[in-house]
């Protein structure tokens, strides 16, 4: 029954089941139509694929390693835990994969300007990198609150020539940065590409971002088949908007023996979290139908997470669909658990994970305990934690 309900592409209006679509002003329709057409054409075009593969390899450092975390595995005392090392990709996070793909697409479209939103600053950094690389003017919208807590990334973006614009409205975080980027886009849609950083937004963004991020899961699959001759038992990833999770999970969607588990940010508890899937309800935000945190009037609530990258009250429509079909399970880890996991991985493996990825690490340890020693878990380590050193000051014991 599950098999029939699985779909690996949205319908022509951009729906994954009842999630997705395009809830945008009419003025964006020409750009979204143009983008959809270009994406469908280029993703199968050899020249584009080769150029992207070349950048991915020689500029981005792909493929990223699949690392067997021996000491973490011993600590957990169960299934073997492998880390997909997206933290080693250029820029320090998986955000490169999408920024590179969309950046190249922008060049093919002939647009002269890129705008992007950023929360933790990882997507902003990746976009600034690609803007510099391809010689495209780059403007990054970032909430004032995030600018305070992610200073190193702000400085990196500016060093690479991007214009970082502080967003002072609403909760002054990622959600408001998306609103501001959308406002810029409707003004400048004819010259500008909006390089959305996650699997959110109107069609074709959720599909397109997932496509460029799927390189994560494809490499995992390739490595597993090469080393072990079989697929992993479980793939895990943290979920904010959901781009590293979508990219890790999608190549396994039809391999129903592989369990998939997304980890949302549990924040401080029931009243302050970023659990759009496990705590939210169906609604429309930033151009698509999905799950979001909202009150009964339909006003979107402020999310909370210690990690700026997960601090978002919505989630990608395809993940909402995977949740509804039961293909992917979702759980969460609290702020404190993520902080503990960050310290643990740093001490056991000499790898400092981003606070975002630390949520997945925290749950992986528990889940590994319940599994057999000959089973294998892959956790996508979506980014490195250097950017979080200031945030964790005083929070770790």
């Amino acid at each position, binding site marked *: 029954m599950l098999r029939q309900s699985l779909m690996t592409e949205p319908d022509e*209006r951009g729906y994954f089941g009842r999630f997705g*679509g*395009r*809830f*945008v*002003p*009419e*003025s964006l*329709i*020409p750009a979204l139509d143009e983008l959809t057409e270009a994406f469908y054409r280029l993703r199968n075009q050899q020249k584009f694929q080769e150029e992207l593969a070349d950048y991915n390899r020689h500029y981005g450092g792909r493929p990223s390693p699949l690392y067997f975390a021996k000491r973490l595995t011993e600590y957990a005392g169960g299934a073997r835990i492998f880390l997909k090392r997206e933290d080693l990709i250029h820029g320090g996070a998986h955000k490169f994969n999408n920024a590179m793909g969309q950046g190249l697409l922008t060049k093919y479209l002939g647009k002269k300007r890129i705008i992007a939103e950023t929360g933790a600053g990882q997507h902003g950094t990746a976009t600034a990198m690609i803007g510099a690389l391809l010689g495209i003017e780059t403007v990054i919208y970032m909430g004032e609150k995030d600018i305070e807590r992610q200073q190193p990334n702000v400085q990196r973006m500016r060093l690479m020539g991007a214009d970082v614009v502080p967003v002072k*409205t*609403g909760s002054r975080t990622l*959600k408001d940065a*998306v*609103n501001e980027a*959308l*406002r810029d886009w*409707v*003004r*400048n*849609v*004819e010259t500008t590409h909006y390089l959305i950083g996650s699997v959110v937004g109107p069609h074709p963004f959720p599909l397109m971002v997932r496509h460029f991020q799927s390189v994560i899961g494809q490499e995992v699959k390739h490595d597993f088949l090469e080393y072990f001759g079989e697929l992993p038992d479980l793939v895990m990833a943290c979920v904010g908007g959901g781009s590293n999770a979508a990219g890790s999970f999608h190549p396994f969607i039809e391999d129903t023996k592989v369990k998939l588990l997304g980890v949302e940010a549990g924040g401080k508890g029931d009243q302050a979290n970023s659990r759009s899937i496990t705590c939210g309800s*169906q*609604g*429309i*935000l*930033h*151009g698509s139908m999905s799950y979001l945190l*909202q009150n*009964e*009037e*339909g*006003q*979107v609530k402020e999310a909370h997470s210690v990690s700026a990258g997960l601090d978002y009250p919505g989630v990608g429509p395809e993940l909402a669909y995977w949740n509804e079909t039961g293909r992917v399970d979702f759980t969460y880890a609290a702020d404190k658990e993520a902080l503990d996991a960050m310290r643990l991985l740093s001490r056991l493996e000499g790898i400092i994970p981003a606070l975002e990825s630390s949520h997945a690490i925290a749950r992986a340890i528990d889940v590994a305990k319940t599994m057999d020693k000959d089973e294998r878990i892959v956790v996508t380590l979506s980014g490195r934690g250097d950017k979080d050193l200031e945030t964790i000051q005083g929070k770790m014991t």
Partner: protein
Amino acid sequence: MKASIYFPFGFPTKEKSLTIFEEVATSPVQYVEIGIPYSDPSADGEILQYASQVAIENGVKVKDVWEAVDLVKRHGKKAVIMTYANIIYQYGIDEFVEEAKRHALDGIIVPDITVEEFPQKLKLLKPIFLVPPNVKEERLERIVRNSGEFVYIQSRLGITGQKEKFDPRVKWILDEIKEIDKDKNKFIGFGIHSANDVKLFRKLGANGIIVGSALVKAIMEGKGIEETIDNLLDT
């Protein structure tokens, strides 16, 4: 020249907004647009964002908006609701349509639902669609034929309330709409700030204007409603 005046329900408070709606409804306008604030109004500029935020912080309730609709109707003016998709979905489309019909609402504007996405049921409320300057010819006809009381032509790309140059494509759009349906009301909005703007668009063939941010700004500056509307309409 006809006029449609927008004001956000609940700003600066529910009671004050009702007073403002009453005053607008007694001024020489044909339509009163009642905005239901949304937390993430991505089509709005700073002024309306601010007004929405204040209204939400004051605990504006969607179910109370019908009071404003009744008030406008009592003064013999047409009432239009403008809000974002999520507000209506959370209220429930069926309930929203039922209530709107009961209160004889004359139209609805939802800037983040395009003509294709518009739910069939909600079309019973005679949607008014926006026409941006970059509209493609093949979409324009569909938008015009599906629009209720008037077609809402954007004077330029972008968000509400900005003072930027008007887009020259507006003239083409006005001519084109006349070809599609010569009786269709053609209203222009986005950044209408002065009687000169109004004159310009009348000359180009528009027969109505839409004012939103300008009135909110005037009220924030303590100016009179009647005076502001009179100045714009040059009456």
